[in-house]
């Protein structure tokens, strides 16, 4: 857990230094202390953007750990549940068909919940990890396809929409941080599920025998994961695979106890997204590669490997 925190702090520093103009850590420190709204590099651009990345990455990591804990399926994550793309589709729909309506986090939540509900209903009562993952990928691909269709048929509004739907942190700043603030209490509330999730890992019978209210815990964990993911998607668009990879890495680092697993998954999720964003900014400045593209490039092969191993 301490190691994950150190990695995250180091990455934050690198993120603040890297970009179209590279600056030294010492300069960063002075600029941060200055709180100068005229400072267009660190204080009003890279710093809030990094904070946005940290919050979103952490939310996705925690959401992934919640879903994996409650569904007891190594392939489960908010992306595979259809939450990420469902939320993305809802955001695209509102932006393109009803531009100017606003309330994006709300619609994102609706879309994410609909995606999760669809998948849970389809897999109700069946416990096959592979079937679950495959149907989730199919549902997600359908949502993504419809999103693409909307983008192609509404060329005029596409610019703003693309900004929200590419899974990117580009131009995210202080106003977006306000939208993300609910993530912090949500992640703290998620910690109360640590003990029931530990017990659920021992199987349904033991969870019952140890006094866990399984239905309530399942419901609470999925709801929280949907909310965390949907709020993230409403700001950055669908960022794939962070919610899948971060909990896996965290489990290797700190083991299966959720009291340490949940915060570690959060920190690693934050680190992954921040690293992807920094890399995307640093490869060929001033052009940028969206963070979501980079997480997918690393995450998709990892998912395939997991799928292969689960057989």
């Amino acid at each position: 857990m301490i190691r994950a925190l150190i990695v995250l702090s180091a990455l934050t520093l690198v993120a603040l230094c890297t970009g179209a103009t590279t600056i030294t850590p010492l300069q960063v420190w002075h600029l941060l202390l200055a709180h100068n709204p005229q400072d267009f590099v660190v204080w009003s651009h890279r710093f809030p953007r990094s904070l946005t990345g940290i919050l979103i990455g952490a939310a996705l990591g925690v959401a992934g750990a919640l879903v994996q804990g409650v569904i007891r399926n190594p392939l489960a994550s908010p992306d595979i549940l259809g939450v990420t793309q469902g939320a993305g589709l809802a955001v695209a729909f509102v932006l393109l068909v009803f531009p100017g309506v606003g309330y994006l986090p709300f619609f994102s939540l609706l879309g994410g919940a609909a995606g999760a509900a669809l998948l849970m209903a389809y897999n109700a009562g069946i416990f096959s990890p592979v079937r679950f993952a495959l149907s989730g990928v199919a549902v997600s691909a359908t949502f993504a396809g419809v999103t693409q269709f909307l983008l192609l048929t509404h060329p005029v509004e596409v610019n703003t929409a693309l900004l929200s739907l590419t899974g990117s942190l580009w131009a995210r700043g202080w106003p977006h941080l306000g939208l993300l603030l609910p993530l912090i209490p949500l992640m703290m509330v998620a910690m109360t599920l640590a003990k029931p999730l530990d017990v659920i890992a021992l199987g349904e019978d033991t969870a019952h025998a140890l006094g866990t209210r399984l239905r309530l815990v399942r419901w609470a964990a999925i709801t929280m994961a949907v909310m965390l993911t949907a709020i993230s998607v409403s700001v950055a668009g669908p960022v794939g695979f962070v919610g899948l990879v971060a909990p896996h890495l965290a489990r290797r680092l700190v083991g299966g106890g959720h009291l340490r697993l949940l915060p570690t998954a959060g920190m690693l999720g934050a680190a992954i997204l921040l690293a992807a964003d920094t890399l995307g900014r640093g490869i060929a400045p001033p052009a940028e590669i969206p963070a979501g593209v980079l997480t997918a490039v690393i995450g998709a092969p990892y998912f395939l490997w997991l799928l292969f191993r689960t057989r």
Partner: protein
Amino acid sequence: MTHAIHVEGLTLGYDRKPVIADLTLSIPAARFTALIGPNGCGKSTLLKSVIRTMPPRAGRIDVMGQPLNAMSARALARQVSFLPQVLPVPEGITVRQLVGYGRSPHNNLWGRIRGTDRAKVDEVLARLDITDLAGRMVDGLSGGQRQRVWLAMVLAQNTDIVLLDEPTTFLDINHQVELLRLARDLVATGKTVVAVLHDLNQAFRYADHIVMLRNGGLSGCGSPDKMATTPMLREVFSIDACIHPDPECGRPMVIVRKP
């Protein structure tokens, strides 16, 4: 005799056909009850209904004289513990962590292991002679070790009623006898033990009370002497066997006849 568990008119099942139909049965308190019957006759299903994994279709279940559906999850977990027949392999937790989870009905929201909890965990680890496994990962244990570690978790829960589903399956003969003696020790301290056993001789020798199930329901229940009869074994297991007193302590011993 008071009853630890009493079921009345109980019907249980997974799909349309019930596994157990209209079962009425009492489990005596502070006794060792052996639950025996052929594979697939519903022994596990019956135990699962007591911890509420398996909701009844009809009938009622009382635990210590209280109706089960009036008890909170936590209250039930402080009275009844359960060792499943199939043990999942939780990833990335140590034996000590696993055994500590047995304390969860007694500790707070965060599952913090306090002094009394730690003392109980140490006690059961020592009792089962697995203190040296405490730091090992559960996913790296052998089948028999895993079964004893899970049993430690169940004992750490420290409940008045202990349900064990095939607790001896993966154990060598030495540890099987250890387990049966442990069950006797628990009963001597006033606890109720119900165990699914497949070795009839072990059941008749160590248990106070025998419950025989066959497909669909109860064949009979009573003391080992009453239940260990040639017609009973023919009815339940379709075997032809004779019963002799065992030379060590005179309890019924089953010998299968030549075909």
